């Protein structure tokens, strides 16, 4: 092959680089699909955030954010969820290395911190309802309970999924399809923490300081 022909072939292959080589592998497809699903979940939360932002002043003569929110408890919740997310990251590394013990342990830690978070949130909700500040009290409280409760519901369903995942690894081992589900679970769990960042800022901090 002459030099020019080789150069031509090389430039040709460079030009072809971004061209498409056919269907992606299953891990990419599954991860991407779940990623799109998560974006749709973000939009659900966006609607609830919008409702909260519009209704936050409609206290109907009842208590407002200043009187209700206890930032210390929120800070502890935030910490618990953050550690839970971290443990979930460790679990996906353990899964990647096919270490069953590591995976179970990390998932268990994830679950414990998730449970702490849920416990604190339920405790907060009970306290509000006790004070007569339940979701039926005002538009503000309806929006608050729905937005924060929807996040809590996601965490609860995530816990159900978490234990199902542990059972799957126990029964089937680190098969490819199980690995893909672990990837989706960790995406889900991390995404919930991102939404929580929005909640503690826009609901609690804005509520108390603005």
């Amino acid at each position, binding site marked *: 092959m002459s030099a020019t022909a080789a150069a031509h072939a090389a430039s040709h292959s460079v030009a072809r680089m971004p061209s498409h080589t056919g269907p992606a592998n299953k891990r990419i497809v599954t991860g*991407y699909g779940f990623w799109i699903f998560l974006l749709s979940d973000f939009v659900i939360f966006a609607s609830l955030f919008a409702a909260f932002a519009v209704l936050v002043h409609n206290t109907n003569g009842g208590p407002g954010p200043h009187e209700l929110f206890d930032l210390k408890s929120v800070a502890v919740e935030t910490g618990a969820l953050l550690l839970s997310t971290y443990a979930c990251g460790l679990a996906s590394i353990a899964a990647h290395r096919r270490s069953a013990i590591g995976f179970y342990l990390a998932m268990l830690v994830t679950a414990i911190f998730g449970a702490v978070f849920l416990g604190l949130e339920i405790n907060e909700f009970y306290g509000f309802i006790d004070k007569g500040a339940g979701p039926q009290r005002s538009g503000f409280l309806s929006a608050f309970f729905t937005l924060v409760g929807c996040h809590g519901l996601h965490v609860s369903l995530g816990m159900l999924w978490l234990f199902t995942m542990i059972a799957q690894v126990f029964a089937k081992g680190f098969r490819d399809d199980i690995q893909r589900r672990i990837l989706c679970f960790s995406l889900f769990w991390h995404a919930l923490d991102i939404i929580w960042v929005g909640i503690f800022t826009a609901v609690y901090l804005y509520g108390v300081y603005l």
Partner: protein
Amino acid sequence: MSDARQILETAPGDEADVEHEFGGGVMGYTVGLGLAALLTATAFVLPALNLVWPPSLPIALGVLAIAQMGVHVVFFLHVTTGPDNVNNVLALAFGALIVFLIIGGSVWIMHAMNANMMNPAMHM
């Protein structure tokens, strides 16, 4: 499917090359945890310290929240601006735009209506 494709694309949540990194990615998560904890702590402490001019507080808190979301996206979800992540980032950008339009639009529209229609809730 083919190897060439493998290099060009990564699933969201997957690190581009876990094996070659020190600590197999534990480092990444730990750095993320540290940054997130720092940003969270700042957000909670900042208003109480009176360090920031009060009217700019919402902007400061908003910036901190967006920064922390960025930290989570990069260190936990591993969605980066690398060439293997174009589709993932585009999807995220589309989602962020929609979230912005829905929240921003709703707040703007409803605020304008309340102002024009003298909604009693605004005068409480």
